[in-house]
C-alpha cells in the first residue's frame, strides 16, 4: 500500500538498531547541574535565585516576563554555586545557573508514566487550568525547535484551531527517544494528547507515526480503542522518509494540506505537538511536575553502552557519556541531536537542554565520508537538490546567491522558507554544503535587519 507522504525528502540509513530495544532508564543525579537560561525560542530568562541559595527540587530558577518564553526549573535539591557563562550548543555561550546537588536528598526522579491508565479523563481539568499548568511547568516543544508550548496550545480567536497533529515520526536517523516514549509511556502520551486537544479546542486528533514503527502504531491503536473509542482520534501511518517529522511535511502527509509559504500551521487551524511534549503536558497538568527531566537517546558506534536515558536537564554531556560507559577509541564527533539537524559540539561540559533529544557519537569512519566543504566541487546543475527539497525550493540558486552576497536574489528564491532540514546537502553529488550556505544567508539577513533597526 502507498503510504501517505510529502514531495521530496531523502532516505538516509536509519541506524535505529543501536537503541531501538533499550528501555528508558533513569540516570543517577550527577555532581553538577548547569541550567542555561536560554533553552527555548523567545525572550531569554533572567535568574531569580542568588548565589549560595538553597534550591528545592522543581523550584523555578529563571523566568522572563515576556509572553513567548518558558521558565526554567531545578531538577534537583541543591545549592546555587554560581551564575556564569556556560557553553551552549547553538549560540556558543550563554548565562547559566550552576547547581550543586546534595546527594543525600536526591533520589533520581522516576517517570510518572505508570500512574496513567485508560481511566484518565481530560474533562476533569478546565482549558485555562491546563494552559496555566503548562506555562508554570515551563514546557517547550521537545522535538527540537523549543517553541513555548503554552503559546502553541492556547486558543487564539484570530486563528481558531480545529486539528491537533501529534508528531510521532522521529525521522532523524539514530534517534529513538520518542519511539521508546510512545511504547513505554503510551497512556501518559495519550493523556497529554487529550489534554492538549481539550485546552486548544481541537476536535480532530491525528497521530502521525512512520511505518517503520509498527509496534508504536499498534500500542496507540489499542490504547485509543480502550480509553476513548468515541473521540475523533486516529493513528495515521506515514511513509518512512526524512524529514517526515517536520511540521509542515507532517501536515502535508497526514491531512494533504499545505501550510502557506512563510506562514505557520495555526493559520490553517492546525497545531502540531511532539509525543514527548504530550507526555510532559500530562505530567505538568496532573502531577504539577515542571519540565526538569527528559528522555535522551545516547547512540552511535563510538559509545560503550547506547541507550535511552531519563536524564535531568542541565546534566553535562560528559557526565551522561560517563554514565553510558564512556567513549570508545574511535569516537571522533559528538553531535547534540541527530546527524541530519544536530549540532556538533567541541566542549563536553555543554549541558543538555530541554530540546536535546539525542546525543549521537560518530566514529572517524562515519565522518570522513567525503561529505564536507573541503572537497566541494562546482555545481553540475543536476537538480537533485530541487528534487529532494521538501519545501519545493531551489537550494542551489539560494546558496549561490548567498555565496556572492546577493541577498535580494536569495530572498526572491524564498531563502526564509527553508526549513534547514539538510536534504539538499545530503544528496548533492558535488558535496556543496547547500544548507550551510542557506543558514549563513539567514544570518546575514538577520544582521542586516538589526543594522537597519
Amino acid at each position, binding site marked *: 500500500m502507498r503510504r501517505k507522504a510529502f514531495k521530496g525528502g531523502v532516505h538516509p540509513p536509519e541506524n535505529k538498531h543501536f537503541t531501538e530495544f533499550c528501555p528508558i532508564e533513569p540516570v543517577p543525579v550527577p555532581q553538577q547541574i548547569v541550567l542555561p537560561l536560554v533553552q527555548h525560542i523567545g525572550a531569554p530568562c533572567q535568574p531569580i535565585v542568588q548565589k549560595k541559595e538553597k534550591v528545592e527540587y522543581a523550584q523555578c530558577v529563571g523566568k522572563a516576563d515576556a509572553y513567548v518564553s518558558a521558565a526554567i526549573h531545578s531538577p534537583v535539591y541543591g545549592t546555587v554555586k554560581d551564575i556564569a557563562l556556560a557553553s551552549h550548543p547553538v549560540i*556558543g*555561550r550563554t548565562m547559566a545557573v550552576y547547581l550543586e546537588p546534595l546527594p543525600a536528598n536526591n533520589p533520581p526522579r522516576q517517570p510518572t508514566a505508570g500512574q496513567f491508565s485508560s481511566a484518565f479523563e481530560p474533562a476533569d481539568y478546565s482549558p485555562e487550568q491546563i494552559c496555566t499548568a503548562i506555562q508554570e511547568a515551563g514546557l517547550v516543544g521537545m522535538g527540537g525547535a523549543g517553541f513555548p508550548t503554552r503559546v502553541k496550545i492556547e486558543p487564539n480567536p484570530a486563528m481558531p484551531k480545529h486539528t491537533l497533529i501529534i508528531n510521532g515520526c522521529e525521522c532523524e536517523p539514530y534517534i529513538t527517544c520518542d519511539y521508546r516514549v510512545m511504547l513505554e509511556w503510551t497512556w501518559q502520551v495519550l493523556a497529554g494528547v487529550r489534554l492538549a486537544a481539550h485546552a486548544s479546542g481541537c476536535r480532530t486528533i491525528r497521530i502521525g507515526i512512520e511505518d517503520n514503527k509498527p509496534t508504536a502504531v499498534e500500542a496507540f491503536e489499542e490504547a485509543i480503542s480502550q480509553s476513548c473509542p468515541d473521540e475523533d482520534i486516529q493513528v495515521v501511518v506515514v511513509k518512512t522518509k526524512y524529514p517526515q517529522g517536520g511540521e509542515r511535511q507532517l501536515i502535508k502527509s497526514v491531512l494533504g494540506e499545505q501550510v502557506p509559504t512563510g506562514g505557520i500551521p495555526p493559520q490553517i487551524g492546525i497545531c502540531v505537538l511532539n509525543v514527548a511534549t504530550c507526555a510532559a503536558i500530562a505530567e505538568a497538568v496532573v502531577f504539577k511536575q515542571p519540565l526538569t527531566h527528559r528522555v535522551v537517546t545516547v547512540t552511535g558506534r563510538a559509545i560503550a553502552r547506547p541507550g535511552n536515558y531519563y536524564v535531568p536537564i542541565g546534566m553535562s554531556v560528559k557526565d551522561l557519556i560517563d554514565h553510558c560507559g564512556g567513549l570508545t577509541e574511535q569516537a571522533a564527533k559528538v553531535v547534540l541531536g541527530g546527524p541530519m539537524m544536530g549540532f556538533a559540539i567541541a566542549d563536553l561540559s555543554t549541558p543538555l537542554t530541554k530540546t536535546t533529544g539525542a546525543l549521537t557519537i560518530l566514529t572517524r569512519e562515519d565522518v570522513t565520508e567525503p561529505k564536507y566543504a573541503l572537497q566541494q566541487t562546482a555545481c553540475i546543475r543536476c537538480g537533485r537538490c530541487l528534487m529532494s527539497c521538501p519545501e519545493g525550493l531551489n537550494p542551489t540558486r539560494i546558496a549561490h546567491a548567498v555565496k556572492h552576497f546577493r541577498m535580494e536574489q536569495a530572498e526572491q528564491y524564498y531563502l526564509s522558507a527553508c526549513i534547514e532540514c539538510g536534504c539538499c546537502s545530503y544528496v548533492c553529488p558535488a558535496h556543496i554544503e547547500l544548507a550551510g550556505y542557506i543558514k*549563513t544567508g539567514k544570518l546575514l539577513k538577520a544582521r542586516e535587519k538589526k543594522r537597519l533597526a
Partner: protein
Amino acid sequence: MMIGATGMQTIIFSALLMIVLGLLFSVMLLAASIKLKVETDPKVEQIHAVLPNVDCGACGFAGCASYAKAVAQDPSLIGRCSPGGAATAAKIAAVLNLQISEGGAPKRPIIHCRACQQDKTYYGEYRGIIGCTSANAQPIVQACAFGCLGFGGCVRRCRFNALHIIDGLAVVDYDKCTGCGACVAGCPRGLIEMVPFTQEPMMVVACSSKENGRMTRAMCSVGCIGCGLCAKQTDVFTVKDNLARVDYARYQPTEAAEAARQKCPTKAIVFRGKGAPADEKVSKTAAGAPAAS
C-alpha cells in the same frame, strides 16, 4: 592586369560618389553636433581624470565617474576619495578653484586580533564552509569568540591586494592599503576598525576579547586580559569590559606609551601602520595558558 575603359569609369564614378556622400554626411554630422550639443561641465572630466579610477566605492558613489559628477555639483564631498587621499583632494580642489584645509589623519584599518594559528586554542576540528560568516555561526570553530577566524572574508573584499591571511590571521599591508574601508563589512566579528593614523606607526591593542582575564588566557596566548598595566603607565590607554583601548587622537610615541607596550604581559599592544616592526612572538607556555581540558 588589364582594366577596360568602362571599368575605369566605374571606379572613378564610385570613388567620386563616395567622396560626395562622405562630404554630405560630415556636413550633416557637423550640423547635428552644433544643433544637438549637450552641455557638459568640463570640470567633471577634469576631476575624473585626477581620480584613481579604481571604482572601489569607498566614496559612497557607484564609481569614479559618478563621484566626479557629484563632487563637481557639491564640493563638500571633496575628501571622500580614500584611495587618492589628500593628494587627490588637493587636485580636485585645484580643478574647482577651491582652497582646502588639511584634512584629518588618513583613516586606515586595524585588525583587533593578533593571534596566529599557534596562539589560538581549538577545541574541535571545524569542517564546515570555508567562509567567515558561516564559520562564525558555529561555536565549534575556535575557542575564542572574538578572534580572527582566518577564512578571509575581508581579503575577498579588498580591491587593492592589501589584505592577506598569514598563518590564520588577517594582516593588512599598509603600503598597499588605501583606507577605502571595504574590508570592515567583511568581518562578521567586527574586528576591523577604521582608525585615524595620527602617527606612523601607531600603537594599537590587537585584541577584542571581552572575556575576563582567566578565560582569555585559557583560549589565547596573545589576548588582552584587561589587567590594566598599560592604563597605569599613561592615560592614553583605558580598560573597559576587560579590554584595553588606545585613544588614537591623543596617541604620541612617548616613553610612557613604550613602557606600557613593554609591560603588557601578553604583548597585545603592537605597532600597526607603515614601518611597523613585526609582532613579538609569545610562546604559549610563557603566557601561562593552561591546557584545554
